[in-house]
């Protein structure tokens, strides 16, 4: 469904808002697309990582001599080869601290989780490299380990890092973040009803299909080329530079097609190691993670322990809200505290808020960003408590949200004062949707119960640095280059925008992703920013190109450029000269480009702003098989303000994908550890992401309320949809069973146990 608020604007569009064929589609469905692991080079050798067999151990020494002596081995790398960032001084790249990154790519003083890289080998083939890894002798002093949050924050917990202190004592609490508004205690004193609950979520993995992979060639002149898939070739360049000491100007990072990232590919694991192996061996080095390595050693998102307390007056006015969120960082600091601390209460106008997050380290792989980092686990707590509050107050849960929703001018505890806020529209869209109004038979068959739940969500969205170049080819077609890996169909949206602005057939526009040496700096594909930011720089570049085209036509006609308009892909004389000359098409102008002043093209580089936040409201129906404890999602409708859907298919795809990942988080995905601190389900068989047949068609309701700060009205859409599902599903299960699950996933054994206890 598509609800459009400014019809006129839209009806004039030929390409924007249409479902054009995506530029990367044919290559992907025919298997031609070149992903990171597809790159092959003459003389290439293979790198493999030796990983810690212990969850926590001091590394006393590493002897690589036997491995180096094995025929076919060309290089061995340990932490000694990686640039050391001393513990006392933070060096940041974006949100990543290089002190932690250098220890994450290669264990330094200690191995901090089972699977932590300890050394790496490059050899003539994978088998020899694996054999060489077995020949490396590491002397470990095995230390007690700690996995769960509750255990890690106990006073007698094994401490991971002596240098981390909290309240002046060595601690696994690596940091604290707070968002505050008013006075919560005074607020709770005004409340007639207060609900407080504690919630637990497990770490979940982003679950991208493509494993991390790269090929790195370090040449004799000190220049390196990296082929890898990531959510930012410029991040790859910068982080590899920092960790290897090779200057950025000597590194060219070429982005491969990416087979999913969902935030996790905003950091790197292999590239610096492969670069150092290549430098030592003089050969291009290829590294490809196995699925086991991906699950074990690339970051999932944090598990959490949260307590949320909300107080309201009898009439439903919320007067105070408090949240305490403990997040698992994995073995090195850096949980996404900003997600739960800032987003949990942001959709609501609440005068008194205290939201506090703690960053807790334990012997797990370091977390990485995952779609709206941290926000879903916070919303799970808040939106579950709101559901319970609505029940206690006898108010419809959507009414309660509507009554307290943030409005233009509302101040959020995290600091923002909102401009345009479109939260109410999402609630109304669900409240008036046929799904919410349809009767639900709660006991359709013996042994089966059904329920309906709602929840809302918030995500900040982001602008930031983007670059684009638009060039007219000699034959009068268009090549657009941007600097963002395309994970969600951004090339398709950019093609629509460019064709629209130039007034030409869509098929005449090609869009490509530039490498770090061919396009200006562009920040990560993340934060729901790429379509927003790249449409902005592409629009400005294209407008410059149109100005050039008008100037060329003016010069040919010998009239003032101001008297030339650009319409339907051609320059036309206007004003007093209207009709004086036959129009000049893009093709004709391109053919005359060189005699009339040279090649036609323009680029723009910007730090984009104006990405206002995203809001979403969802409704879901679930069915519970009470004897087996299986919960199935029957129907799901997700409403979101998407600003402007440049290409509706990929906006829908974002909403549907986010919801499906939320369903997995709620029902079946979790990291399971054994007693030795080893991950016990490092495969897609036992790490249970939903498969197609597990989920119904998710119905997206795209509310097209243009963002006034964007040339096409775009608003980020990728992250908000994963925020509500956890609570929406838990609330639906409560409606079905009368049991409120405060711990995810709601797996069958847990459901049966709860039903037997009820």
């Amino acid at each position, binding site marked *: 469904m598509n609800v459009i608020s400014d019809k006129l604007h839209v009806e004039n569009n030929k390409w924007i808002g249409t479902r054009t064929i995506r530029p990367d589609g044919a290559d992907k469905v025919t298997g031609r697309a070149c992903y990171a692991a597809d790159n092959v080079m003459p003389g290439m050798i293979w790198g493999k990582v030796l990983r810690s067999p212990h969850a926590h151990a001091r590394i006393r020494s590493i002897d690589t001599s036997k491995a180096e002596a094995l025929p076919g081995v060309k290089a061995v790398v340990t932490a000694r080869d990686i640039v050391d960032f001393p513990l006392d001084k933070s060096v940041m790249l974006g949100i990543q601290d290089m002190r932690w990154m250098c220890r994450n790519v290669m264990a330094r003083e200690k191995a901090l989780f089972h699977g932590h890289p300890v050394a790496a080998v490059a050899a003539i083939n994978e088998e020899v490299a694996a054999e060489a890894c077995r020949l490396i002798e590491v002397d470990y002093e095995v230390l007690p380990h700690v996995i769960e949050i509750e255990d890690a924050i106990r006073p007698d917990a094994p401490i991971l890092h002596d240098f981390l202190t909290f309240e002046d004592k060595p601690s696994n609490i690596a940091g604290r973040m707070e968002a505050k508004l008013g006075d919560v205690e005074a607020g709770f004193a005004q409340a007639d009803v207060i609900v407080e609950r504690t919630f637990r979520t497990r770490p979940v993995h982003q679950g991208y299909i493509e494993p991390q992979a790269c090929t790195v060639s370090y040449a004799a002149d000190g220049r390196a080329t990296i082929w890898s898939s990531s959510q930012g070739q410029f991040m790859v360049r910068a982080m590899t530079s920092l960790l290897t000491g090779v200057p950025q100007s000597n590194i060219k990072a070429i982005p491969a097609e990416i087979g999913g990232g969902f935030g996790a590919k905003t950091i790197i694991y292999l590239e610096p190691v492969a670069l150092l192996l290549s430098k030592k061996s003089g050969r291009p080095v290829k590294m490809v993670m196995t699925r086991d390595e991906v699950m074990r050693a690339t970051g999932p998102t944090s598990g959490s322990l949260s307590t949320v307390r909300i107080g309201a007056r009898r009439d439903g006015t919320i007067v105070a809200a408090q949240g305490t969120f403990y997040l698992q960082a994995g073995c090195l600091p850096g949980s996404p505290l900003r997600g739960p601390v800032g987003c949990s209460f942001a959709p609501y106008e609440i005068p008194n808020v205290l939201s506090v997050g703690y960053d807790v380290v334990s012997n797990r792989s370091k977390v990485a960003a995952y779609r709206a980092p941290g926000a879903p686990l916070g919303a799970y707590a808040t939106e579950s408590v709101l559901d319970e509050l609505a029940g206690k107050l006898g108010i419809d849960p959507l009414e309660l949200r509507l009554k307290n929703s943030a409005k233009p001018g509302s101040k959020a505890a995290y600091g923002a004062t909102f401009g345009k806020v479109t939260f109410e529209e999402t609630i109304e869209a669900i409240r008036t949707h046929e799904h919410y109004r349809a009767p639900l038979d709660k006991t359709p068959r013996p042994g089966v119960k059904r329920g309906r739940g709602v929840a809302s969500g918030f995500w900040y969205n982001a602008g930031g640095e983007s670059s684009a170049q638009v060039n007219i080819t000699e034959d009068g077609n268009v090549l657009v280059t941007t600097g963002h890996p395309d994970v969600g169909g951004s090339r398709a949206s950019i093609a629509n925008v460019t064709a629209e602005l130039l007034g030409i057939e869509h098929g005449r526009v090609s869009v490509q992703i530039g490498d770090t040496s061919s396009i200006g700096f562009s920040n990560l594909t993340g934060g729901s920013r790429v379509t927003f930011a790249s449409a902005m720089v592409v629009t400005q570049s294209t407008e410059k190109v149109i100005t050039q085209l008008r100037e060329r036509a003016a010069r040919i006609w010998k009239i003032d450029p101001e008297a030339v308009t650009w319409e339907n892909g051609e320059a036309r004389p206007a004003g007093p000269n209207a009709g004086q000359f036959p129009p000049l098409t893009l093709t004709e102008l391109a053919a005359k480009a060189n005699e009339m002043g040279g090649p036609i093209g323009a680029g723009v580089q910007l730090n984009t702003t104006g990405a206002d936040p995203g809001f979403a409201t969802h409704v879901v129906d679930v069915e519970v098989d009470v*004897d087996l*404890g299986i919960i199935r999602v029957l129907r799901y409708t997700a409403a979101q303000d998407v600003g402007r859907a440049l290409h509706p298919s990929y906006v829908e795809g974002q909403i549907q994908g986010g919801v499906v990942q939320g369903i997995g988080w709620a029902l079946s995905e979790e990291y399971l550890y054994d007693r030795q601190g080893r991950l016990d389900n490092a495969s897609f068989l036992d790490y249970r992401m939903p498969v197609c*047949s597990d989920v119904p068609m998710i119905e997206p309701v795209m509310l097209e309320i243009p963002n006034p700060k964007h040339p096409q009205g775009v608003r980020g859409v990728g992250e908000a949809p994963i925020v509500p599902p956890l609570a929406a599903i838990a609330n639906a299960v409560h409606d079905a069973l009368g049991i409120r699950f405060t711990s995810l996933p709601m797996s*069958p054994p847990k459901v049966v*146990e709860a039903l037997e206890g009820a």
Partner: protein
Amino acid sequence: MAEIRYLAPRTLDEAVGAFAAAQGAARILAGGTDLLVQMRNGLAKPGLIVDIKKIAEMTEIAELPDGGFRIGAAVSGAMLAEHPRFGQVWPGVLEAVNLIGSKQVQGRASPGGNLCNASPAGDSVPAMIAAGAVVTVQGPEGRRQMPVEAVPAGPGRTNLRPGEIVVGFTLPPRPAGSGDAYLRMIPRTEMDIAVVGLGVSLTLAGGTVTHARVGLGAVAPTVLLVEEAGNALLGSRLEEAALDAAAAACRAACRPINDKRGTIAYRTKVAGVLLKRAVAIAAQRAQGGN
């Protein structure tokens, strides 16, 4: 790097000869959907692979004059599904075999491989046990027969003797009024491994159970024949009490472990639930429904 030899003999004698001569360094390859995965994981490192799919007897499905069926050990799930008669007579066995993996896996995976892989969670095995299937085995000392439930010895281990290959399954003739069913509990809807799997085969005469067998998977080191469950149903008209007793027998037979796929308490409970549900389907089929 160790070398791997590959043989695809045309006769069973050649296959047994090569397999036995390799003295444990060889592995039989049917569909390879377990073996190749294990080789990639480094769990299996055979020096010789003996592919049995080129042996005619291994890939044949035959309806016998007495009404029974003979299925070659290497018949794929897809081939079995395409047989015009098999699914009508043994819908439960067919659905169990067809539950293995996905469409792609079905093109390869065989009931022989499923049995010889000896996973306690193999889907076709409880249904075959319930059906009363017997396997024919050929080895250096000739042919012998054994009931399906006698093949697995423990996770990943069988009671086959060195050099022995499973040739095929024989399913008995089906009296009128018979029906079978297989159900498994998986948290997802497909591409998952059974937390509990249960097969039932029934014959009813005038509403009374005259024959009942129950196979139960994923709750013990091997797939089990639960004779007590069959006995509890025998002579009954599938009254609540008989169903309760059969479900209790299934629960009592469970010797599960707590693992990432399910808890002891959960698996035990589910065994009873599946018994009742599978019996209901089998009984309906026995009485002419689908």
